[in-house]
Every structure is written in C-alpha cells, then in structure tokens.
C-alpha cells in the first residue's frame, strides 16, 4: 500500500472542520469550535509528515506518485482528473501550509476568542487551508485553479470578517477583484497551455514543454506571461499589489497566514511549478525578474513611511515576495522556494507578534501611539526581534541564507541591475523593519493612558516562540557553499530538473521544419558556462550583511538617537509625501480604471441601455402609438371625410397603377 493514497486526507480534514464549524459552530460552543478547527490542520500536518517520510524512500528517477480521485471534467479529448500530486515541491508547500497553518490556528484561539462569530472565523480559516492545499497539491492546472480562486474567496471573507466596517468590506472586494484580474490571465494561460499541449496535467505538460514549445517563441512567451500576470495578482506584485496592504483590515492571524505565509506566495509556487515553461521563455523571465526586483525595491520604500504596524509588514511582504520572483526570474527556483519557506516563518511570526501587540493594546495599530513596549510584551518583543533580524538578513538567521542565495543568483544568473535592486531593497528592508521595532518596542512610550498594554496568553505566545525558533533556524534547509548540503536544493532537484540542451535542440529542429534555421548555441553556451563561484558568494554575503547592518544603524540613528530628525527631514519634501502616499498608485488606479469603469457603466446603463437600446424598443412602441393616433385621427366621424379619403385612396391607387404600367 502506498501512503500516497492518504493524500486526499490532507485537504479533507480542514474541509470537514470547516463544514462542522460552518453549520454547527454556533450550537457547539466556542471550545469545541476551537478543537474542531485546530484538529483539521494538525491532522493534515500529521498526514503530510507521513507523506513526507514516504517520499524520502521514493526511488530516484521514477515519476512521483499522483492520486487521482475521480474524473472531474470530461469533454471530448479533454479529461481533467481531480487528482493530487505528491512530489517534493508540493510537499514543501504542504509542510509550510499545514505547519504554519496549524500554528496560526492555535494562535487564533487566543486572538479571536472574544469574537461573537468565532465559529465563522474558523470555518473560513479551515476552508482557506482546504483551498490552499488543493492549490499546492493539485496535479493539474485546473485543480490548482480551484485552490487558486478558493484561497482568493476565503481571503475575501476573512478580510471582510469585520463586515460591519466599510473599509474591511471594501478591502475584501478589492482583494478579490484584483485577484480576479490575475485569475483572468491565469485562465488564459491555462487555455493557451491546453491549446499547445492538449492537456493541462502538470507532469505531462512539463515533460512535453521542452519538445513542444519553441525556445523564446511567441507561444511560450505569451503563455508564461499570462501565467505570470496571474501570479502577480495572487502574490501582490506590481502592478496588482495594491490589494495586499488594504487586506490588513482582516484579523491579524489571517494576515499572518494568508497575506504573509501562504496564499500570497502561491504565485511563486505556481511559477516554480511551471518552471519548465518559464525556462522556455527568456523574455518572460526577464520581465519576472524586473517586476520582482522592482516590487522588492518599490514596496520597501513605501514600507519606510507607513505608521500602521500591519501595513509596514504588508509592504514588507510585498517586497519579500518580490525577492522570490526575482529569484524565479533568474531561474533560481530553489532560492525562491527557500525564501518562501523562511519568509513564511519569520513573516508569520512578525504578524503574529504584531497581533499580539495589537491584542494587548486593545486594537491599536498606529506605531506612533506605541513605543517602549518591550517591557510590557517580553515574549512578543523577543520573538519579534528575532524575526526582524531574520528578515533583515543577519547571519545566521534564516532570512540571511535565503536572501543571500537570491542575491547571489541575481548577480550570477542575471545581471548587476537585478542585484542592485535586490541589495538596495535589502538595505531599506533592514531600515524600515528596525524602524518598526524601535518605534514600537523602544524609545519613549506614546501609549494612550487609557490603554493598559499586557502580554498575550500562552496560546498566543507559544506559536510565537515556535515560529521565532523556525525563523532562527530555518536556514538549515539551505546551507550554502558546501555542495550537497543544500537540503532544499537536493530535495527539489528532481522536480526542477530541466534539460536546456534538449529543449534548444528540439526548438531548432521545429524551426528548421518551417525553414527557419536558427541556432541557440549561444544561449546554451552561456547557460553551461555558469559556474558556482564560492568566493564571490562569500563576498556577497559579507557585503549584504554589511548593508543590512547599515540599514539597522540608520534606523537606530533616526529613531533612537535622534527621534526628532525624521520629522524635520521629511517635512515638506514632495518626495516623502509621494512615498508616504504610496506613490498615489491607489489613486491612480482609482482615477484611471475604477472611476472610468463605474462612470462608464453608469452611462452605459442610464444612457446606452435605458435610452439607447431600450429606447429603440420603446421608441418603436412610441412610433407605433403615434401612427396609431394618426391612423385613428382620420376617423373623424364625418361621412364626407370618409368619402374624401375613399376618393383619395382611389386616386392614389390610380396613380400607382399608372406608374406600374
């Protein structure tokens, strides 16, 4: 018996939890709700572990097992199974999702306990896990797409959890709609893949990709571009990132789980999952790298100016995911996944920490009204600091390893521009993260005297400790330098293996068939000549740690040493205003897309539809009525009129008959 047949249990447990809580949550009481809710992810985690261990013994070189539950859609030659794929990549994601998910579920018990619709929260959260697991486990694009949209909708519900707040609702809708824009492109990508491959099964597509697509061909570029746009929607990249900061309207654990650790990284996962396609499209790769790097830098700058503790973290998330895409863009998929994992740890911890603070501060989120909290929140402070150091990339915290791997690959496989963007982003990251720490936990207290800050209960701090520990040690997964020690790399190798030579050769053959003799020898040569330069890597590491420290120092200077300085410096600076207002991107979208669409629709309805299209219909009726009035107005009741009309009619017929002959 293969353990893979247990795979379906992984998403099933949260689903059951969700259904129980959703339907009976109000009746069974909060305690039972908590149990049911946490049991789901924890059991899933357990099953995932089993699957993980069974995969350790997977014979090399054989395809990874898939579990097909049933034929989902069948239309002609299109057969889509509802199936799961258990391979190293999905297992990594499943571990993250169920692991971090379990922790956050536990945390939520404490955080959400006072809520009336506690059960609803957990029902959503379990449902989210279910969708997320479908996303990562699906063995074809469409199952992935269920999860893809499912997490979107759960995110919508959870962002709008406080549905009485307008801002929360708006944020939810915004998140969903912006995600949908991405989904739109994703769908097109799926269509394109089907058109090219005749299947949407991951294994088949990825196997066929090198020999079916033409390297750098139009089809490859367009499909991957569509997929990538889909990813930008889900993973909050330029230009579709605007929903994520607003998504902070949701409860904080949600931000931790969905908007930091799991869902937003789905885009990265998808790109990695389809790496074979992306490898065929260097143009797309370039775009991905640019967008990723750009986002990393861009979001980081905004992060420096925000005052809401969660928003800072949100922009930080956007920025960190940018790094992951940067990695994808240069073909360093392992690095992307690595960063994804470590980011899940430290960012979840950061969010939960901020949640703890918010909880203890009675839902105060403005860091200007905090300060000096480290005494009130000892555990939170320590864990928060650990994660902050991790994100800043200080050795030997996890963030250091993953980020440096990305930066290294950006320089080696990409170019100095990518690296430049990355490294400047790193500096700013260190700066604004420590700005956050300093403003929140250090310095003088600005706490409202009516608020009595208090540390959170154990059920909340325990997860913090676990996550902080992971953030500290997560780097083990990818210790660099020594070949063979990069656990994650070895682990993912079979999934990401890509034979560029065969692919290029196949492309040459296909092009030749159409009379285009193109040689990809140069590309191949370039790719093969890349070698691991260990000294360069070490240099880069030292440099980037230095940069991070510089960032921390700057933050210290501005916010501890001379706390009055930032205010003075930024006052009246248009540049600062620009950044503080997030480059007015939201306003820009509002003016260029939302408002025109709304106004246009209104016009369309009131003018085009009601007056135009329906106007024609009613106009016809009106004309008929008019004619009708005319027709009966001849009926004057006077006999001689009638006779007159008869004569006129006769004459008319006379004339007609004369014309005819």
């Amino acid at each position, binding site marked *: 018996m293969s353990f893979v047949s247990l795979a379906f249990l992984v998403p099933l447990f949260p689903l059951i939890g969700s259904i129980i809580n*959703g339907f009976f949550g*109000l009746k069974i009481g909060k305690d039972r709700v908590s149990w049911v809710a946490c049991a789901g992810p924890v059991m899933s985690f357990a099953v995932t572990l089993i699957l993980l261990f069974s995969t350790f013994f997977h014979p090399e070189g054989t395809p990874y097992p898939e579990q097909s539950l*049933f034929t*989902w*859609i069948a*239309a*002609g*030659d*299109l057969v889509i199974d*509802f199936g799961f794929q258990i391979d190293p990549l999905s297992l990594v994601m499943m571990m993250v999702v169920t692991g971090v998910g379990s922790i956050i579920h536990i945390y939520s018990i404490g955080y959400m306990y006072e809520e009336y619709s506690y059960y609803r929260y957990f029902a959503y959260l379990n449902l989210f896990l279910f969708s997320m697991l479908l996303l990562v486990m699906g063995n074809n694009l*469409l199952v992935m797409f*269920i999860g*893809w*949209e*499912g997490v979107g*909708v759960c995110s919508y519900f959870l962002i709008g959890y406080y*549905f*009485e707040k*307008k801002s929360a*609702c708006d944020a*939810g*809708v915004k998140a*969903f*709609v912006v995600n*949908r*824009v991405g*989904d*739109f492109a994703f*769908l*097109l990508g*799926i*269509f*394109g893949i*089907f*058109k*090219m*491959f*005749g299947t949407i099964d991951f294994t088949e597509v990825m196997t066929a990709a090198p020999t079916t697509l*033409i390297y*750098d*061909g*139009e*089809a490859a*570029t367009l499909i991957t571009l569509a997929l990538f746009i889909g990813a930008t929607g889900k993973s909050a990249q330029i230009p579709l990132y605007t929903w994520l900061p607003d998504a902070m309207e949701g409860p904080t654990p949600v931000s931790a789980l969905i908007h930091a650790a799991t869902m937003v990284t789905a885009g990265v996962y998808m790109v990695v999952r389809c790496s074979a396609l992306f490898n065929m499209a260097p*143009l797309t790769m370039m775009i991905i790298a640019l967008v990723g790097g750009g986002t990393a830098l861009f979001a980081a700058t905004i992060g420096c100016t925000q005052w809401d503790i969660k928003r800072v973290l949100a922009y930080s998330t956007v920025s960190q995911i940018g790094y992951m895409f940067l990695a994808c863009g240069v073909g360093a998929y392992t690095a992307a996944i690595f960063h994804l994992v470590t980011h899940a740890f430290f960012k979840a911890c950061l969010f939960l920490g901020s949640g703890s603070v918010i909880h203890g501060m009675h839902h105060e989120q403005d860091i200007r009204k905090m300060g000096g909290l480290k005494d009130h929140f000892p555990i939170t402070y320590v864990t928060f600091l650990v994660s902050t150091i991790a994100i800043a990339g200080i050795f030997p915290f996890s963030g250091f390893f993953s980020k440096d791997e990305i930066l290294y690959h950006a320089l080696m496989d990409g170019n100095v521009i990518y690296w430049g963007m990355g490294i400047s982003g790193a500096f700013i990251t260190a700066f604004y993260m420590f700005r956050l720490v300093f403003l929140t936990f250090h310095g003088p207290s600005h706490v409202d005297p009516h608020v009595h800050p208090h540390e959170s209960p154990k059920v909340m701090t325990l997860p913090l400790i676990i996550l902080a520990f992971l953030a500290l040690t997560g780097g083990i997964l990818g210790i660099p330098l020594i070949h063979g020690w990069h656990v994650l790399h070895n682990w993912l190798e079979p999934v990401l293996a890509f034979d560029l030579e065969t692919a290029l050769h196949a492309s040459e053959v296909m*092009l030749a068939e*159409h009379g*285009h003799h193109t040689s990809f020898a140069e590309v191949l040569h370039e790719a093969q000549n890349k070698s691991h330069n260990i000294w360069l890597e070490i240099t880069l590491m030292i440099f980037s740690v230095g940069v991070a420290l510089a960032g921390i120092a700057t933050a210290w200077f501005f916010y501890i040493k001379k706390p009055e300085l930032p205010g003075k410096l930024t006052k009246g600076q248009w540049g600062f205003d620009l950044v503080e207002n997030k480059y007015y991107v939201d306003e820009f979208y509002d003016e260029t897309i939302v408002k025109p*669409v*709304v106004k*246009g*629709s*209104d016009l*369309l*309805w*009131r003018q085009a*539809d009601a007056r135009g*299209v*329906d106007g024609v*219909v009613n106009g016809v009726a009106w004309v008929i009525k008019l004619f009708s009035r005319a027709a009966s107005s001849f009926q004057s009741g006077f006999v001689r009129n009638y006779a007159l009309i008869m004569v006129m009619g006769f004459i008319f017929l006379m004339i007609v008959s004369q014309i005819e002959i």
Partner: protein
Amino acid sequence: MFLTFLTFLPLIGALALAFIPKEEEGAIKQTALAVAVADFLLSLQLYADFDTSTAEMQFTMDVPWITDWGISYHVGIDGISLLLYIMTTMLTAISILASFGIKKHVKEYMMAMLALSTGMLGVFISLDFFLFYVFWEFQLVPMYLIIGVWGGPRRIYAAVKFFIYTAVGSLLMLVAIIWIYFHFHETVGVFTTDIMLITQQINLDMIEQKWLFCAFFLAFAIKVPMFPFHTWLPDAHVEAPTAGSVILAGVLLKMGTYGFLRFNLPLFPLASVEFLPYVCGLAVIGIIYGALVAMMQEDLKKLVAYSSVSHLGFVMLGIFAFNHYGLQGALLQNINHGITSGALFLLVGMIYDRRHTRLIADFGGLAKVIPVFTVCFMIMTLSSVGLPGTNGFIGEFLVLLGMFQNEMSYAIVATSGVILAACYMLWMFQRVMFLEITNPENEKLTDMTPRELCTMVPLILFVFWIGFYPKPFTKTFDASIEHLITQVQPEDAHGSQDHHASTETTIKMAQATAVQNGTH
C-alpha cells in the same frame, strides 16, 4: 408515450385544479405542488433510462397530426434536451413551492404555473416544427399572465413587452419555417415539418442559409436574450413574481439557446460559420455589457437580470465555439444558469417578501440578522461569479476553453467578463449583506423558513455537485454533441482544423504562427 404523459401531466393537473373550489387555497397549493413534484420525480426516470451512448432521439412518439400538411406529433429527447427537460420539471416544482405565499388568485396562479410547465416541456421535446412552434408560443400566455397579474407595479408594461418582443422574433421564425417547408418539398419532394427529417436531408445554399439563419436567430436571440435584444428581460424580471423570475431565468431563456443548438447549427451550418464573428461578437458584447450594466443596478432583481444577459453570453459563445468543449460548456452553463439565477431570484424574492423592497440601498448588514439566508446567498453569489468548485466555473471554463481553441480573441475578451462578474456580484453582496444595519427595519428580519429552505437546498446541492462532479451531467451530452459537431463540421472542413483537431495539429498550427511572428 411516457414523455407525452410527463409533458402533459402538469396541464392535466391544471385542469384538475379547476375543479377545486377557489376558497380551498391549501388544497390547491398542495395539489399543484404534488403534481409538479410527481412530474419531477417521474422525469428522473428519463435520466435513468436514458442511453448516453447514442445521439438518437429517445422516448420518441410519432403520431400523425395534420396529415394534409405532413405535420405529426413527434416528440423525443436527446442529450441536448434531457437535462433541460428535467431541470424544467424541477424548477417548476421549486417555484410552486416558493409561491405558497402568493396572496391573490391562488387557483389561477397555480393553474398558470402548471400550464406554463407543459408549454416549456413541450418546447424541449418537440421534433416537429409545427409542434415546436405551437409550444413555443403557447408558453408565452401563462408567463404573460404570471407577470401581468401577479407582478409588481409596472407589471403590465413588462408583461406586454415580454409578450410582444418575443412574439415579434418568433413570428419571423414562423415565416422561415414555412419557407423551409416548401423548400423541402421542392428539393426532396415531401411535405413535412419533421425536424429530424429536414435536418438530415435539407440542402440549402449559402444565401438561403443566411436568410433563414437570420430569421431563426432573431427568434432565439430575443429569447436568450442576446445584446441588443435584451431589454425586455430586466423589465420582465423586475416585475415578475419570484416564481416567474425563476422560471423565466431558469427555463425560458434556455429555450433560446436550445433553439440555436437544435435548429441554427444543424440546419444552417454554412451560415453558422459565416455568422460566427457576428454572433460571437454580440455574445462577447453581451458578456461585458451585461456585467457593466449589472454593476450599476440599484434593484437586486435587475442586477440578477443583467447578470443573466452576461451569463447567457457565455452560453452563446460556447455554442458558437463549434467544438466539444464549448458545446459541452454551453449545455452545462445552461443548467448552471438555471440553477444559480433561479436560486438568486428565489433569494431576492425571500427578502422582498419580508421587506417589500428590492433596492440595494434599503439593505445592508443583513448578514448579522439572517445568517442562514446569508450563507445561501453567498453560495449562489459565488456560483454566479464562477468560483471553481461551484457549477458556474465548470461551464464558463469549458466555454472559454472551447472558444479559445476556435477564436482566441473572443475568448480573451470574454474571459475578462469573469473579473466584472466578481465586481458586480461582490459589490452587491457587500452592500446588501455586509456593513452596518442602516435601516432599523432590517433588524427585525426573520431568517429562512423551513419551506424556503426546502426550495434552496436542492439548488445548493446541485451547485456543488456540478462543481465537483459534473460527470453525471456531462455524460448525457457527449453523444449528442459529437453528432452535432459532425452536422456542422463537413462544410466547415478547412476551418475546423484548428478547433477539432488533435493536439498534434494544434501544435503545428501554433508553431506555424510562432514562426511567422517569432522573435528570431
């Protein structure tokens, strides 16, 4: 014979109702419901006995009717009509259950509903042009009465508009039918109105096909309704009583798409291919336009009505994809739309019964007061949005996939409709269900009654059933779709390569384009 019995059972029921005294409203309601439910349950037998391996008509019955003109009572069901038929019986039962709250003229109302059911069922089973036309027009009358007598304030306007608008279209179809009748006699030598026979043997040249296509198109496009023939729909929906809207959205609109599948494609394959750009263009416009206009609606029913315009655009797109995916998607989307929009109208009707308003602005914060209702509404909203895992997704996906294989550009534009769908549905949902309760009247709302829940539960089940396991539904289509494609295909030989072709040819085509536009 069984089919005939099923079809006329509601009418018999309606006649039986005539003998129950007016005052005994309870008995009337129960009898009507019993008849409708019995009809539904019995119609399931059709599904059980249906042979999915053949595209032949099944359960046929062919009795000479007007022999002088070669008209016969010829009925039967194939994969295209089976599910529509069963859905009709189901929605009839549900709408009758949903109309128990009706206040005035209960007896007449129930009679009209049952008569309407017979009319609609007849449309789906008719295999004779004359018979088809009879049913097609016949069902207008009960629907007209349902809107006009039991509808809202502007009911008369809406009812008359509905009737006349539809009649205008179908009368031109009548002309076309007669024309075909004579043409068939001239070319084949038989006076007949048998659809099967004519479909098999008719031989029309391009010009003739074009004209006839247009005549049929108008009739069906109005019924669907396609942009720009859609304006009767919002009015009819807004004014119709709940059950009327359910039937209207659930079944009546399907007659249009059914007509395309049954007549336009098989009879006029050349013209269908010729007009593909226009029809698809209109469908795509309908998708976008319906969505945009729906976004601005202030009335819940109107919003759902415009969303129907948008959804039916998808169905049309699927039909004109001319391939298995598209057609399957279209057929499934037909069913989906019946379930989802039907449910949405039911839900809107429920809050209308409580608040006597449908204006979105009058609501807000309902989620807190009526949670069960909110959940149902949410599920249907998401189904309407086309969330994967619900029925809406499967249909839209297949349609768009099919169209993408055929004509990429339409599919791309149409796909953007899914974004807009999210916009208008969620925005509406937010304004109705979320936010603070602004209107104190909303605080006193009561949640769904068991009866109302009874109407919703089957629909919700279908939403997820089709969403996760559509096979029992799609398998009924397969043979018929294959058959339909072969009917359209022969004339479509060169164009068909890229839509029906195997993966290899698709790849080759794509490669050729890649070469032409390649970056090298």
